[in-house]
């Protein structure tokens, strides 16, 4: 990343993966990443922590206390919520103006009737089929997108990043201009995704929002709607790179298929979500016990009725 030296005006490249300060090759002036020129790893804005560590610890403890019975033994033994870390995670906060069109078919129930009698009684339906389309113009305000490749991967089969995704949104309106001093005492992660990387995900979310918006206008199709085509026109977007504050407790599950389990607390609102690893045999035993009990009742009922 390039910086303008405040001493002599020369451009200096700093590897921000490893250092937040650098010395100008020309005039030996030392400067920090606040004097950045190009848009890159340093965000435009930061939302400072509001929830204190004690509060976050209490919320994590409360979350786990409700989930002890079937939790993995090692997880419970090693559970130390005091090890929670305050992390600034990189996001892009997006405002956008868009139009969407959706097309498909909807059905309206016209008649319900039954045929046959007793056990053979069956219900039939008649319906009118309509070809329908909807158009909506809308703006979205402060939509947050994970701007690191790793955090943006929300595949619950391989990681628990969906936990961190769930504690969104933040009160991003209260963000302040970036200043490296907010980082002291906290950890942070780097942004490695650009506007162009994130645009497909933005468009997906805008389409989802549009589909949510049009739902209210197809209420008369009481047998539902099958949308078959959709189209999005983005008229304009505004992107702000922002660090958002998250209290993160993590537990690395060992063994085959073991993953990193997070419990995350929103550093502003306190919203808490987590993934507690389960002791599979306990869970299966409980399920089988209840299943056996239900089956026994079924047999009793069958036995008494025949």
């Amino acid at each position: 990343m390039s910086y303008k030296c405040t001493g002599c005006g020369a451009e200096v490249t700093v590897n921000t993966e490893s250092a937040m300060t650098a010395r100008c090759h020309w005039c030996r002036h030392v400067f920090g990443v606040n004097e950045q020129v190009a848009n890159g790893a340093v965000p435009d804005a930061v939302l400072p922590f509001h929830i204190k560590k004690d509060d976050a610890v209490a919320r994590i403890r409360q979350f786990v206390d409700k989930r002890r019975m079937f939790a993995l033994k090692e997880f419970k033994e090693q559970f130390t919520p005091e090890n929670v870390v305050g992390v600034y995670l990189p996001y892009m906060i997006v405002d956008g103006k868009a139009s969407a069109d959706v097309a498909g078919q909807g059905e309206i129930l016209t008649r319900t009737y039954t045929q046959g009698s007793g056990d053979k009684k069956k219900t039939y339906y008649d319906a009118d089929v309509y070809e329908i389309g909807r158009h909506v113009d809308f703006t979205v305000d402060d939509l947050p997108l994970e701007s690191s490749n790793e955090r943006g991967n929300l595949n619950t089969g391989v990681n628990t990043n969906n936990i961190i995704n769930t504690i969104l949104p933040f009160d991003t309106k209260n963000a302040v201009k970036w200043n490296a001093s907010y980082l002291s005492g906290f950890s942070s992660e780097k942004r490695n995704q650009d506007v162009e990387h994130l645009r497909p995900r933005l468009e997906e979310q805008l389409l989802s929002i549009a589909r949510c918006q049009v739902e209210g206008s197809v209420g008369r199709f009481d047998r539902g709607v099958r949308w078959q085509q959709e189209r999005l026109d983005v008229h304009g977007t505004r992107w702000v790179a922002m660090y958002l504050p998250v209290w993160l407790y993590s537990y690395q599950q060992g063994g085959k298929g073991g993953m990193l389990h997070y419990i995350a607390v929103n550093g502003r609102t306190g919203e808490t979500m987590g993934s507690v690893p389960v002791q599979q045999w306990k869970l299966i035993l409980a399920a089988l016990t209840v299943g056996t009990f239900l089956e026994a009742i079924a047999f009793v009922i069958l036995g008494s009725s025949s």
Partner: protein
Amino acid sequence: MSDDGGLALLLLGPAGATGLYWYLYRYYRNTDKSHAFERETVVEAKPVTGSDQDRKIDEVKGTRETRISGDNVREFRKRVKRIQSDTS
């Protein structure tokens, strides 16, 4: 009791066991959770248009299904065929 009812009753055990397993698993692991951006984002929308163009094209007689096949009116995140816009 009918054969159908008896069979359904026999499925009570396996169904209950499976249901409880998934309910507890999701309560602990929360694999089904994510940011509900559709509802939690501030969206300002103009009134939805197009309902005046709804056109009856067919009738269904005597179906036993209670919903249209492929109903996705509430599955906002399930993408369907994307028609590319002229501008992009």
